[in-house]
């Protein structure tokens, strides 16, 4: 049998839970555990590069007539101007190198693509299809029919209801945990896509948001077109909706930077099922923020499959603003090339009886590939009887493939049930043998087992058509690595 040598590092910050169960799954191989204090962010002035970036964003998007959007730009511009470009010395970017962006000539994309009709829009009729190209909503490719009364899906600029506009204006950009990339999006978002679900309304057909990056440079080009798509989802009390986000590049190996933000506000008893599929070009940078605000008894389920991008990062922040919430984050990251796949997630529980489950899985199948996971679950003082679980599993398939995982629980409440764990492994010998014992050769067995590792997450995508697409894409990517090796 082939030998799988690998090196990996585990970095743990494990604030000792005040009480509750902490379960650590066994770790195989060499690992390093470091315990350290998280430094408080220091306010400082931004550097020249950030100033230039802010200027070019301002030049690209002159003032808008939309008040909420203008307000967002103003706030973002202020915060951007007091933010430094992140370096590896900053804890949130310790393992994620963003210097490649800094060395590029970043060009915000100021116009929608010239020939949107050429874009492939293979939307399925069971969904409400929305196409956002380079951050611009392409109305001609969207179908907003079959929406229940009172539901609005479309650009903020076309929104006629003052009531909804007011609600959006109240809540948009109300977020204090953003970083530089959050602010860049706030300054550079050309439009705002609004999804509004009124009280008690259950939307049958999920909204399929297809984000296409059209403009892009050749591989290795210095020029880096930047797009900042922004979507705001507001589900009022008891409302229900499914959101599917898919990110693709028009060309397979183009260089661009997509910097999307999704904000989700879920009213009491509301329910949002969020699927997020990231298939960007393998030369692209993709930095995404998802901010979720959950009121009492609401539920939010995220299933993410990220395979694209040379630098890909997903920042998820879930804020509980009422008791009895349910939160599930399930993610699968795959690095088949010289890629970084990063998930930074934070679930903040401030109210009693919250339930949260997080499963993060990643496969690194390239010696220069890297996966990063920093999963923070914060159980604050009043969040009694919280039930929080977190597990991360990584599969390293090549020598020198790297994973940096930092599952961490911060528990202040004293009556909680919390567990977390990390496992880094190769394929199980006993499972491989089971295949062989049935006449299946080792290579086929390995392929099936590697695929099944990710399938556990893909199977949780709530729509079978999306599941099938993602499965065939992941299978293709995995096969490409096996052919190459």
């Amino acid at each position: 049998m082939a030998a799988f040598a690998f090196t990996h590092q585990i970095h743990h910050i494990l604030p000792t839970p005040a009480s509750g169960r902490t379960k650590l799954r066994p770790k195989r191989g060499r690992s390093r555990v470091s315990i350290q204090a998280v430094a408080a962010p220091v306010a400082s002035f931004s550097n020249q590069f950030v100033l230039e970036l802010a200027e070019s964003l301002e030049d690209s998007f002159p003032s808008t007539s939309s008040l909420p959007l203008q307000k967002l730009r103003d706030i973002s511009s202020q915060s951007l101007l007091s933010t430094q470009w992140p370096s590896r010395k900053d804890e949130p970017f310790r393992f994620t190198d963003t210097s490649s962006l800094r060395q590029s000539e970043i060009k915000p994309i100021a116009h929608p693509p010239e020939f949107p009709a050429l874009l492939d829009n293979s939307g399925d009729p069971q969904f409400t299809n929305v196409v956002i190209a380079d951050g611009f909503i392409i109305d001609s490719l969207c179908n907003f029919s079959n929406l229940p009364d009172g539901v609005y899906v479309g650009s903020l600029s076309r929104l006629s209801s003052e009531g909804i506009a007011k609600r959006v204006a109240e809540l948009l950009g109300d977020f204090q945990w953003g970083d530089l990339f959050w602010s860049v999006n706030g300054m550079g978002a050309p439009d705002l896509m609004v999804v509004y679900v009124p009280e008690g309304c259950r939307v049958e057909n999920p909204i399929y948001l297809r984000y296409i990056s059209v403009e892009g440079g050749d591989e290795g080009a210095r020029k880096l077109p930047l797009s900042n798509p922004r979507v705001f989802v507001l589900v009022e009390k008891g409302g229900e909706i499914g959101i599917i986000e898919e990110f693709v590049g028009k060309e397979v190996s183009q260089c661009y930077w997509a910097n999307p933000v999704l904000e989700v506000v879920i009213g009491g008893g509301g329910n949002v099922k969020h699927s997020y599929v990231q298939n960007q070009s393998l030369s692209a940078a993709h930095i995404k923020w998802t901010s979720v605000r959950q009121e009492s008894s609401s539920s939010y389920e995220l299933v993410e499959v990220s395979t694209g991008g040379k630098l890909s990062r997903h920042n998820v922040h879930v804020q509980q603003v009422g008791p009895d919430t349910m939160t599930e984050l399930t993610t699968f990251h795959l690095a088949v090339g010289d890629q970084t796949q990063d998930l930074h997630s934070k679930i903040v529980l401030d109210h009693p009886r919250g339930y949260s489950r997080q499963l993060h899985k990643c496969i690194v199948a390239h010696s220069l590939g890297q996966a990063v996971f920093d999963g923070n679950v914060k159980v604050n003082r009043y969040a009694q009887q919280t039930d929080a679980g977190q597990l991360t599993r990584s599969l390293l398939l090549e020598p020198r493939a790297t994973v940096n995982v930092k599952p961490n629980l911060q528990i202040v409440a004293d009556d909680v049930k919390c567990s977390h764990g990390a496992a880094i492994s190769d394929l199980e010998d006993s499972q491989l043998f089971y295949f062989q014992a049935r006449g299946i050769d080792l290579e086929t067995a390995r392929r099936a087992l590697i695929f099944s590792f990710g399938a556990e997450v893909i199977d949780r995508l709530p729509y079978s058509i999306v599941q099938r697409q993602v499965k065939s894409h992941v299978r293709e990517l995995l096969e490409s690595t096996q052919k190459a090796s």
Partner: protein
Amino acid sequence: MASALLPLLSSSSSPSRPLCLPSNSSLFTILSTRRLRLCCNSRKNRPHVTLRLSAIDSTAPLSKGSGDDSKKPLLEVRDLTAVIAETKQEILKGVNLVVCEGEVHAIMGKNGSGKSTLSKVLVGHPDYEVTRGSVVFKGENLLDMEPEERSLAGLFMSFQSPVEIPGVNNIDFLNMAYNARRKQLGEPELGPLEFYAYIAPKLDLVNMKIDFLNRNVNEGFSGGERKRNEILQLAVLGADLAILDEIDSGLDVDALRDVAKAVNALLTPKNSVLMITHYRRLLEFIKPTLVHIMEDGRIMKTGDSSLAELLEKKGYAAISAV
């Protein structure tokens, strides 16, 4: 057919050479081969017994079985010793066993006597290393083959505790295994739909519902479901020699009857079964040709099913004393 005429013939021809009635009958010398083989004639009424006598190392110890030597040996284990790969602890200490076509053998023995190790060594489990001896299966050196080659050659082992494989669908797994077999036979592989049509009727055999196929391999299966799944695999893949490693453990009597019924339905005059069990109960459902008692890495005693009865009544001490 020649079989009737040649019960006592042995051949000096090479093991791989099939023996029909050659025109040159001087190739054959008549001699008693009783001491060579552990075959039995309890299934002598089976219609066609092909003759292929093999030259067997006559230095092998006396086998204790007796009977119809016209049967073709399927599996020949000679003086097999094996150690645990990691610790080098010797578990098998010279096993001799011949299973002929169409025979059902049962191996019984105390915990730790080496029964399960023997079955795992035969299918090439990487936890064990063979240190001495030979295993010939259908005339080929089994020990030279990879585990998947052994399976494709017609050897099947049902696992005592089959492993869970999350994320791999049961039907996909079976399809993969079945296609590996077809590929080897030079037949076109079956797509998911064709395979579904092939496998659906087989589910009745193990008394399982169709949704069984859509679950992940052994994931969350009860003990009984796991055993049934092993037998379903046997039914789908077929085998010349099926090794059933404690297929009865953890089964209630109904499940045991189902499993035994399925195994019996799969028996033909050509294929053989090697059962490993602690209990005589299984032998009531699947009648053995021979029963072997294993002790400390060797087969200590061989007899008919009365041996199992004696064992149940008086325990292993009585057997050792006989």
